[in-house]
């Protein structure tokens, strides 16, 4: 038919052997086990850009990746509750040692957020009661939310940042995340304090603010004292300023949110 197009190798005197495929040792590909090709490389074992494994990023881009913050949220419910309990016992002074190896940002962030909500809601409730007791018209002030957000988020970010710079200057550097963790948990005591401020007695409110401020300030100061003592003679000044700042926060809370003028 088309014999001209094909060459017969039956009649040829072939020297050597014709290469065969598959190799003679091969078993059936269905029943027998298949082998990896000899030139296989690890192209497919390396993570590609779309894979689940996080890619190593360099420079500032690392700050925008979720993976770089995951270690600071690697906590369980029990861990967070234990740290909250520790913050309510300010005289132990062991919180910093416990969290040094594994500081978290979950607690500080959500404690702050809870404080913002509690401060705004309790502050509103206090003004509402004050107006109703005197039969006066009352309007909700939405600015309480924004003011309390600015106060708490600002305090828990700026104060640890300033302290971090100061400690670095005095050659006793502490981790920034560790300071954020310490300051964040130190604010937990203000949540029950704000709830107790509903009682419409000015003296009682000042007492609550004072006790909460003292507990919070003691907690931060005692946990940082051991670390700062190596800064030389200036350590007393640093610890005292930390203590005063925490007390100032308590006073600011009382004056801004719980001083009602009808």
């Amino acid at each position: 038919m088309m014999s001209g197009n094909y060459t017969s190798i039956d009649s040829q005197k072939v020297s050597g052997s014709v290469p065969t495929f598959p190799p003679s040792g091969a078993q059936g590909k269905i029943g027998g086990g298949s082998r990896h090709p000899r030139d296989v490389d690890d192209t497919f074992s390396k993570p590609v850009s779309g894979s689940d494994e996080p890619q190593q990023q360099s420079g500032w881009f690392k700050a925008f990746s979720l993976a770089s913050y995951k270690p600071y949220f690697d906590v369980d419910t029990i861990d967070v509750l234990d740290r909250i309990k520790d913050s309510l016992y300010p005289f132990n002074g062991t919180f910093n040692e416990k969290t040094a190896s594994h500081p978290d940002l979950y607690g500080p962030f959500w404690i702050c957020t809870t404080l913002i909500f509690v401060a705004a809601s309790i502050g509103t409730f206090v003004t509402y009661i004050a107006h109703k007791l005197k039969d006066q018209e009352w309007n909700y002030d939405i600015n309480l939310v924004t003011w309390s957000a600015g106060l708490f988020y600002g305090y828990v970010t700026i104060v640890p940042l300033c302290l971090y710079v100061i400690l670095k200057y005095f050659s006793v550097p502490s981790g920034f995340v560790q300071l954020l963790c310490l300051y964040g948990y130190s604010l937990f005591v203000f949540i029950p304090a704000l709830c107790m401020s509903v009682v419409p007695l000015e003296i009682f409110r000042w007492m609550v603010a004072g006790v909460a401020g003292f507990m919070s300030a003691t907690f931060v100061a005692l946990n940082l004292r051991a670390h700062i003592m190596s800064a030389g003679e200036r350590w007393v000044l640093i610890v005292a300023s930390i203590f005063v700042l925490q007390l100032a926060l308590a006073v600011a809370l009382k004056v801004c949110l719980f001083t009602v003028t009808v």
Partner: protein
Amino acid sequence: MSHSDTIPLHPSSQSDIDEIENLINASVHQSVPSARPPSPPRASIPVSVSVSTAPSPFISSNLPPPPPLPKSSVSAVTPSPPPPRPGIATSGFGPAPNTLTEPVWDTVKRDLSRIVSNLKLVVFPNPYREDPGKALRDWDLWGPFFFIVFLGLTLSWSASVKKSEVFAVAFALLAAGAVILTLNVLLLGGHIIFFQSLSLLGYCLFPLDVGALICMLKDNVIVKVVVVCVTLAWSSWAAYPFMSSAVSPRRKALALYPVFLMYVSVGFLIIAID
């Protein structure tokens, strides 16, 4: 084509083909008896002379190359391209759907029906459903956007002063809150789709929207508190299965507490804004 024009398959290749055929026959014989006799022996594969300079695995022929064929015969041998297959549209399935040229009303209807079907998953939630993590697979952001804007507008209408500020704070709280809650679950090591989670948290606002509407119409503090408590429980119950299934059991509370906090803060705004 004579037998001398071809070479037989290598035994190992032939054995592979036979093995496949045996497997197929075995599977067929188990269920249905064969309707026709087994296929005849395989024809041998013809080997054409390579014109290219690439090295061939076969030994080169001692015979002289065949005389070149005339152009006419070559063109006659080349197979003609197959006729174009009829498209799906012309083969009985009807015209292919085109969403670009469809009427706007059809698009709106389709989006609304999707919002309603997604809303049913929230309004009538089932915490014991088989796979709560796969809720709202057909997610969209129109529903959440509508519910957030509606809640903001309802609160601003209810407010007697600073209406624009109330809307701004409510909108920012809800939009940023949904993003932060989703990021929180992701940071806790949860397996969650970002926009699916945003969608679900937005749809879960529907009960609070209803509550806000009732509270706007009924200016009674006790009624407001009762309505908000009911709608708050409803919203939290709707969000619970999805958010809890996204994280490990040891972190369930860490994922759910912020969700509850956001809904409580929205509920408080509904009660407080008078």
